[in-house]
């Protein structure tokens, strides 16, 4: 039997003050009764706050803050590939293997990365530096093959260029 108030603890405190302010800026862009419209931005913001991945608690906090059922937040978070539901390395390498990149040699890019890092697609190096991820077209076909690390796109990849890029990272 259920009464009204016997609910789980609030998880709102998991959203840091700076994140909350940023989420509020997004909420302000939509009509007052459409707070949920900010869900994608909110998820990105708390993911950044948490070192690049989302915990269930954080998703619940977003649901609570935007006044939507938690499952609807999970639906969004699991649908888009930019949300991570498990811890990732300091640098997330998102390799495009969609059609244009594939025609221009993304298979070699993946092979080189896997060899150099000693991990397979979807894995993280033991030292926590790199995560390797396969993604669909990132809209940068003109520079195929390409990948994205953090917020930066790198195109026209060759094994040498990949080494250069990775050597420059901490």
């Amino acid at each position, binding site marked *: 039997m*259920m009464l*009204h*108030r*016997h609910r789980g603890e609030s998880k709102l405190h998991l959203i840091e003050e700076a994140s909350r302010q940023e989420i509020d800026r997004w909420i302000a862009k939509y009509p007052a009764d459409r707070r949920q419209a900010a869900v994608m931005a909110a998820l990105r913001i708390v993911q950044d706050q948490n070192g690049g991945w989302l915990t269930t608690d954080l998703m619940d906090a977003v649901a609570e803050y935007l006044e939507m059922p938690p*499952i609807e937040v999970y*639906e969004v978070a699991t649908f*888009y590939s930019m949300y991570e539901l498990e811890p990732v390395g300091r640098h997330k390498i998102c390799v495009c293997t969609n059609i244009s990149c594939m025609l221009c040699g993304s298979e070699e890019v993946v092979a080189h990365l896997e060899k150099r890092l000693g991990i397979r697609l979807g894995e993280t190096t033991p030292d926590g530096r790199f995560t390797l991820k396969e993604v669909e077209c990132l809209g940068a076909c003109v520079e195929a093959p390409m990948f994205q690390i953090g917020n930066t796109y790198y195109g026209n990849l060759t094994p040498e260029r990949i080494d250069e890029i990775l050597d420059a990272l901490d």
Partner: protein
Amino acid sequence: MVNIEINGIRIQAREGSMVIEAADEAGIVIPRFCYHRKLSIAANCRMCLVEVEKAPKPLPACATPVTEGMRVFTRSAKALEAQRATMEFLLINHPLDCPICDQGGECDLQDIAMGFGESESRYREPKRVVPDKNLGPLIATDMTRCIHCTRCVRFGREIAGVPELGATGRGEHTTIGTYVEKVVSSELSGNVIDLCPVGALTSKPYRYTGRPWENRSHPGVSPHDCLGSNLDVQTRRGRVMRVLPRDNEAVNECWLSDRDRFSYTALAHGERLHRPLIRQGDAWREVEWQTALEYAAEGLRRVRAAAGADGLGALISPSATVEEGYLAQRLLRGLGSGNVDFRLRRQDFAQEEADPRAPWLGCAIADLEDMDAVLLVGSHVRKDQPLAGLRLRRAALRGARVMFLNPAEFDFNFPVAEHLVAAPAAMVDELAAVAKALLEIEGTHPPEGLAARLENVEVHDRHLAVARHLHAAQQAHVIVGTQAFGQAEFSALRALANLVAHLAGAGFGYLPEGANAVGLSLAGALPRAAEPAGRHAGDMTGQGLRGVLLLGVEPEYDFADPAAARRMLDEADFVVALTAFATDEMKRWADVLLPVAAFAENEGTFVNVQNDWQGFAAAAEAPGEARPAWKVLRVLGNFLNLEGFDYMQVDEVREAARAFAGEVEVKAATAWAMPRWPAPGEALQRIGYLPLYHVDPLVRRAAPLQGTPDARADIAWLGEAAAAALGVADGARVAVRQGGAEVVMEARVDAAVPDRCVLVAAATPQAARLGPAWGPVEVSAVKEAVAS
């Protein structure tokens, strides 16, 4: 109306309707998976693709509105090609496990694949596998079979109001589930079994027990709530295999509550009584019906001779049929006693004369949807009558003000405009404050006797809001709910609710407990319904009886005061129980146990709150020697040499009961009479909430229902202040005491419970050992023994 043409047939379609609706009305078959007339349109399965003239590509019939002059082709080469391609696509990841799938034989995918697909697959690659989800004891899942139509998701969000199911992941990785594993907490969850077009969601209790073509279908009526949902009882070789809804737009639409769907599982319970039993000293002997009935008749006659007719009484279940109630009251009255009642949980009979002829709803069930404002007094309607809750939910989502006055803040799955929460005794003042606000709005004087009382009543914003909403509404209704009937202040609450409805120009009615409160009232199973008049259930229990006839009840669960009921039975000289189940408790005080048919084995009539007389025939065989109770009562009447007990068919009894009822004016509202006002007390009050899966002997024995979270009622809920005062923490153990009895329960602290109250549900094994469901109670913390 819009003129369209489908396959050359001219059709008039409603403006704004979809092609699929027009086709359905015209009887033209268009295959579909995701479309369902009661759910929003998702248009995600693409099975309903049809050709539309001038459209370059096939269009989904479920999401294409009709337009004037539109020409649709559902069987053209282009349409068939689109349907075949969709079918092939849907089957890519669908397992070929039809031989071990419960949906086989009634699977939309199977049927549509036969009608619209190819006979061989071109797909050679591996198929995906999806882990199953745990949705609780009612629903079995095989998620690999899911075709992502999202009917179950939409049902949860739109109808049941439990947005716990969702579609997570993307593309081939999409899965349906709760993401964070949890049991779906809806009282309507079983409907997703009917909705799921494939075998992904099936009935857990029915699993692997039968094939649809082996089952025979029988119309039935729900025996658990006052709506009388229409059932399709499916049997095989005389046994109930499962229960499905039977469409009736005016009552249950195409839905069914879990209680109605799964209670049949108790029919095979180990406590079923198969043969008549009579007491011989301390032993029980199985006997022939003849012997048992002679023994029963003889016992009743003996008691009457010794103690007079007033020493006899009949206490019958509020879910007994019209025929049973009619024969029971005729039998008692034939013996010279008017002591007959089914209002077993009621303790306040102060204004019994203000009872309407029967506790009707006062409007059609479907009308609840169209109300603009509704005030429910003492109601957890979502759980009490789940499908009435669904109607009110629709109203609330449409913007209607659905409001409650309750002894605790029950949870609802729709926006509640005002929730007045007060300790049981204080509920009267809350309602009086609403009445006072209405008197001010109307500028009229309070009715007789009330003025003095109202002087001390303060009107707050919340009361004003309730009053304004009711007053301003085009369509408003005030309902006295199931949780109010047992309260010690019932008559005052009822009188004031009537007054509030009257002042607001609103309708008035009831949602009583049981399947047949209306039918039994009309059939005369009440102490004042005919001559001789008799005592009501409260007096029969309190003052005692020498000879007792029980029908379909377990007194320690089904009476207002279990302790008093036991005392009464222990002290009686002779007790005859017509019962489907035999328990040790019954063997303590009964002298004769007569096995009767239960639920779908029975035949008879229920009258629901909108006054539909719904008859049903026996669908299944009763076990052993068990017989329908009306036959038992009829023959018992013969053994007692009573006049007019010669019925051969149940229909004849029904007609006699109808004749007894006469012309009925369906009106639940009654005139004002000043009620007794409760005295505010300092003592801790018990809130004897009646939980949905404990309402009657059948439900209490339905194992799958007992495994759901809703069945958990062995908890003492305390408000924060009360818990602090008693030094009780959430999860601690407390002793609950009433009279001499004490039970130890787990405590939960919850702000939903008002001050100086503890919610200890009625009709549970714990409550069976306590006193009145509503009334004073003592609670203390239990010192936990330190583990050594």
